[in-house]
């Protein structure tokens, strides 16, 4: 093995030790001292050194007063005075025992009490029972789930779709699955609360741009590009996302998707499109805002929607390319750690999809009705319509605020109550005031629900308008109202004399729905 000169006889080695050069032995001595120091050093956390003395800590503890578990709130808090609905919230809704025309639910296609959907749900209930009792990974995957995912992917013409069991959790789980610390998300100011929670959970850098303002977004993207040029190595590991909604819940407007796609390719960001309100509403066949603008669905990296509006089911889905959606099967927190969608709801959603695919004409009917309602609601003094004419969900906002948010909320509440007394169910748009990033002004929300039945059944939409000069309610004034029978069941009445009131409804049996105030 070794030559004779290099035999490692122990004696020779020890001799070499005695003849070792001094620097080497000194270094070894230092290293031995280093080892001893190491063995006796305490563990410590690097940032944990607190600069408070023991006395200061004691003082702080003395000063602390616990807050009450239940903070004092007024009796008028909306959470304490809620309306109780009995029966299904379809075209007519029974609120607090009173039958009203439903303008508060997002039952856009009227599929909520569709007999086919109900039959499919019942059949599934008899077959599977009610719940799944397990997340998707632990025996919670049923054939109806796979079926629904398949159908949704085919309907939206994407490669794959994934189902969540709660609509809010869909986008709130999808965003943090892809966007992590250090990534950048450009998001619209008017993004809904679910998106905001998803962004918060993602711990990424959020950059807000003005609502639907592509110039502002481009400015932000340009700034980011300049920063990237200064630090290309950091830019290479930073992911950029743009999160927009197809139809914004908070403003009823549609996002300018063609410009967004152009910006996406110019600045290399990925688009996450939240289509909760536009799925089943926009587009020729209800495929959402991509179909509305004629954009190829492959340009959008992820589409997320909840099935609680047009599909009249519960839950949500995301669809897109396979390699994008597959990632959520392990990283989507709402997917992995929640029980899966009850099979009866999945079956109901499949049947609703069937109906949507068989009758593509309902989307046109919905659009027409939306346009009509929007037109009819223009020109109310004191309230302005916020939202596009295509949007089935829009807001009625006070044109002049009274000055304080609470007063505005109260006034709107009175308006809502007044409408309820006249059998029109409206709702105020509610926000968690302390949690919203950009709190929208108080407004009343109207959800148009359109039913399409072949025989001209009770497709009914009625809108009550309460007016008064300066937005005050008319009290004690007798105002009359007439209904005009008409073939289409449409009637529009105006009453002069200081108060303008208009009822617009399309109903065959309008006598029942006539309102007086």
């Amino acid at each position, binding site marked *: *093995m*070794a030559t004779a000169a290099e035999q490692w006889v122990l004696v*020779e080695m020890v001799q*070499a*030790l005695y003849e070792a050069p001094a620097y080497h032995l000194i270094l070894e001595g230092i290293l031995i001292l280093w080892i001893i120091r190491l063995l006796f*050093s305490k*563990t*410590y956390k690097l940032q944990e050194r607190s600069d408070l003395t023991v006395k200061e800590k004691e003082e702080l503890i003395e000063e602390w007063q616990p807050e009450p578990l239940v903070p004092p709130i007024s009796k008028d808090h909306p959470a304490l005075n809620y309306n109780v609905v009995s029966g299904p919230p379809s075209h007519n809704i029974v609120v607090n025992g009173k039958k009203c025309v439903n303008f508060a639910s997002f039952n856009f296609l009227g599929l909520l009490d569709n007999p086919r959907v109900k039959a499919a749900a019942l059949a599934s209930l008899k077959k599977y029972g009610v719940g799944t009792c397990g997340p998707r990974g632990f025996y919670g995957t049923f054939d109806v789930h796979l079926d629904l995912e398949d159908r949704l992917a085919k309907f939206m013409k994407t490669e794959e779709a994934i189902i969540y069991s709660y609509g809010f959790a869909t986008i709130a789980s999808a965003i943090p699955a892809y966007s*992590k610390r250090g990534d950048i998300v450009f998001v619209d100011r008017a993004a809904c609360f679910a998106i905001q929670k998803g962004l918060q959970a993602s711990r990424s850098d959020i950059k807000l741009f003005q609502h639907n303002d592509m110039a502002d977004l481009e400015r932000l993207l340009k700034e980011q590009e300049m920063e990237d040029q200064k630090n290309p190595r*950091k830019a290479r590991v930073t992911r950029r996302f743009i999160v927009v909604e197809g139809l914004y819940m908070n403003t009823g407007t549609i996002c300018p998707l063609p410009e967004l796609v152009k910006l996406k390719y110019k600045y290399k960001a990925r688009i996450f499109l939240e289509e909760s309100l536009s799925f089943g509403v926009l587009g020729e066949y209800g495929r959402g805002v991509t179909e509305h603008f004629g954009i190829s669905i492959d340009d959008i990296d992820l589409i997320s929607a909840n099935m609680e509006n047009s599909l009249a089911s519960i839950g949500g889905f995301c669809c897109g390319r396979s390699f994008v959606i597959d990632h959520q099967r392990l990283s989507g927190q709402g997917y992995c750690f929640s029980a899966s969608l009850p099979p009866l709801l999945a079956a109901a959603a499949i049947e609703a999809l069937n109906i949507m695919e068989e009758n593509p004409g309902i989307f046109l009917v919905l659009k027409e009705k939306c346009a009509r309602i929007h037109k009819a609601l223009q020109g109310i003094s004191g309230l302005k319509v916020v939202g596009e004419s295509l949007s089935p969900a829009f807001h009625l906002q006070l044109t002049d605020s009274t000055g304080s948010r609470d007063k505005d909320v109260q006034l709107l509440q009175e308006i809502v109550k007044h409408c309820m007394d006249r059998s029109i169910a409206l709702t105020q748009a509610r926000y968690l005031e302390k949690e919203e990033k950009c709190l929208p002004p108080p407004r009343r929300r109207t959800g148009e629900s359109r039913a399409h039945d072949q025989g001209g059944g009770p497709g009914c939409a009625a809108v009550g308008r309460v007016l008064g000069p300066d937005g005050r309610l008319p009290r004690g004034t007798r105002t009359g109202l007439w209904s005009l029978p008409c073939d289409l069941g449409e009637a529009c009445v105006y009453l002069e004399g200081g108060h303008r009131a208009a009822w617009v409804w399309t109903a065959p049996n309008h006598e029942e729905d006539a309102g007086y105030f």
Partner: protein
Amino acid sequence: MELSPHGLSAFRGLLRLRIKAAELPGGVGESRASHPEGFGWCEGAGKWCDLSLLCCLFAEQRQERGGRMNVGTAHSEVNPNTRVMNSRGIWLSYVLAIGLLHVVLLSIPFVSVPVVWTLTNLIHNTGMYIFLHTVKGTPFETPDQGKARLLTHWEQMDYGVQFTASRKFLTITPIVLYFLTSFYTKYDQIHFVLNTVSLMSVLIPKLPQLHGVRIFGINKY
């Protein structure tokens, strides 16, 4: 080899008088708290350097440490990278791996023993530098949204707590290897230069002052 808790406390009992609790290497705090009498009454006894006590303490730590890392199960460890070097049997495996490397190098014909030792030292230190101080992040997704994405394994160990048992072990091993290498190369000059440079490249990144430091922006992102 398992030390039973009884044997341990009996042994500890013999050494109680010589210990000042606060001076001891950390990581044993849990066992201290669990000891019924505590060490409060030992103040003034002074720090005492007892090698057998240290062995006993390390063995205790090893008992608490071993088997905590659950791979592939629903565990609550946010970043398992932090606990890898504390798992049961990993220290022994590591030492055996160095031994294996050495034996493999020794089997190469026409290579002399000092060269083999220097090679062992260099290869070991290079490997340690790459795996502990170059590669960043985790090979799996962590539920903390990528907190450790820019941290090397050394910085991730024990969530950044300095001077834990594993960190000390990983610092001492290259030094011991260096001693052996110096001995077997008969303190030759060229070997000295190579081995010392290699040792410094492995010791300096382990200093707590260099936690998270990237010199000249190398390896920053």
